[in-house]
């Protein structure tokens, strides 16, 4: 019987969420040849309790159990009918590995999209750009404006790279300047007390 701990929610309270990697349809927890035993090691004398089967999905049976723990650590354990004991603590490593893998996958997909679809993925603002070539007229320009227009005419790539670098820099500079002014007024810019959904 294979188990995988999906996530431990509020470990201090001993609330555990499990995924049982066994395919199957229908039926309650016991139908899978399992019974649960909840040990009470809490100092407050509270009994743990099971929240039972939460839901069924096509490829996994998900079970949710709730128990109360004391200072002695996790108190919920599971046994299959053959008597083999399953301890939650054995699966913590597996959980972390599982979540890391998920994040790695998400980051991988994002990187792939950004790398392979640079011309078509426009997450901010839509609209096709007509395929016409625009040339900047540098005859009336001088100094930095002339240099900027020349860069545009010579290489859109360098022009784009410089623009992408300049926007955050300028944004941060203006942001910091505005911060200084606001702080000078006397407003607390680091916390918000107002709480409403």
């Amino acid at each position, binding site marked *: 019987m294979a188990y995988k701990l*999906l*996530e431990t*929610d509020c470990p201090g309270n001993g609330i555990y*969420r499990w995924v049982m990697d066994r395919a199957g349809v229908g039926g309650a927890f016991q139908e899978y040849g399992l019974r649960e035993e909840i040990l009470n090691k809490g100092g407050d004398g509270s009994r743990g309790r099971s929240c039972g089967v939460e*839901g069924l*999905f096509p490829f*996994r049976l*998900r079970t949710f159990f709730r128990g109360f723990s004391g200072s002695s650590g996790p108190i919920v354990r599971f046994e299959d009918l053959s008597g083999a004991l399953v301890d939650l603590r054995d699966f913590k490593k597996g959980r972390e590995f*599982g*979540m890391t893998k*998920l994040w790695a996958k*998400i980051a991988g*997909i*994002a990187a792939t*999209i950004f790398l392979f679809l640079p011309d*078509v*993925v*426009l*997450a*901010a*603002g*839509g*609209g*096709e*750009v*007509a395929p016409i070539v*625009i040339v*900047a*007229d*540098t005859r009336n320009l001088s100094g930095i*404006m002339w240099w*900027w227009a020349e860069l*545009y005419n010579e290489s*859109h*790539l360098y*022009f*784009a790279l410089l*623009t*992408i670098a300049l*926007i*955050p820099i*300028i*944004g*941060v500079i*203006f*942001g910091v*300047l*505005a*911060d200084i002014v*606001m702080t000078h007024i*006397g*407003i*607390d*810019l680091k*916390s*918000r007390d*107002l*709480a*409403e*959904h």
Partner: protein
Amino acid sequence: MEWLYVLMPIAGVKIFWPGLIILGIGVGIIGGFFGMGGAWMVTPGLNILGFPMAFAIGTDIAHMAGKSLISTMRHGKFGNVDYKLGMIMLVGTVVGFEVGAQMIMWLERLGAVEKTVRILYLILLAFIAWMVFHDVAKRRQKQQEALKAGREVDKLATGIEWHKTFHKIKIPPMIHLKVAGIYCSAWLPIIVSFLTGWLAGILGIGGGLIRMPALIYIIGCPTHVAVGTDLFEVMISGLYGAGTYTYKGRTELVAAVIMLVGASIGAQIGTVATKYIKGYGIRIAFGIAVIGCAVSIVLKMVPMYYPAYRTFFDGASTVVVLGIVAALSFYITVKMVEGAKQEVAAKKASMAKQTGSQV
């Protein structure tokens, strides 16, 4: 008065630069307050200033990226940005946007879709406006019922509670979004961001107008966190969009920087105003902005049936958009100034009290 005009090096036109700063301030205030890019507000403004439309989208996105960065920095310090949620949603948005954009190109090959797209946009905006005001009305009802029963309504209570139903879906993997205070299936933000991105791709918009209410009503983010997280997403996607448009030669950085001067002030005002305005205050103002956007689209659609009145209705649409921007900016600024005054006065009073007790 020649000094009031600046020559755009790429577009080759002279633009009234104080106009760009004022536009930047207005859009910065609204963007920082509502958590959206605000392309629907910028384009008519640039149009009025005589900005060549070939550069309008690229310039708008470039300034939007910088402005969102400023707002995100501030919202981040207030604890309003859920970076984990933002990163998950960014992936869904990008993929969804691409699917939507490809779909609209395919539909265009089949026939004219402009009218259909605009009607779809209108229906969506009407739905969002209804959702916002229905939520406000329901919460008010709860408040009144609580008052009758002689108790106070919970500060975290909401009118519409759809997000609670969505949180019951327990398809693994489950994620805990600490800043937003949400424990839900990872598929929820992925699917929501995909759908909002897909709609944005179909409609040819940035998507902040759709994503903000989706974050609140479907994912269940508190309003302030929805604003901050959406801005974080706009910042990254805006920077990427600015790169692609600039590579195609469609960005006038000088104009973007001038707008950014105004937007940096506006973004601070809008963001700091969220400190003094309750979540439901933000939602109501957002609902009004959505209605303004819908009215401007209706006015843009009228000439499709009455082409002779095109000039009039195009002008009216611009007036409506800029009127809404001006009115909301004014309201937000006033609220921010009032709140700041009270805070400074309270600080002075507490300092005076401390000094008094020491003496």
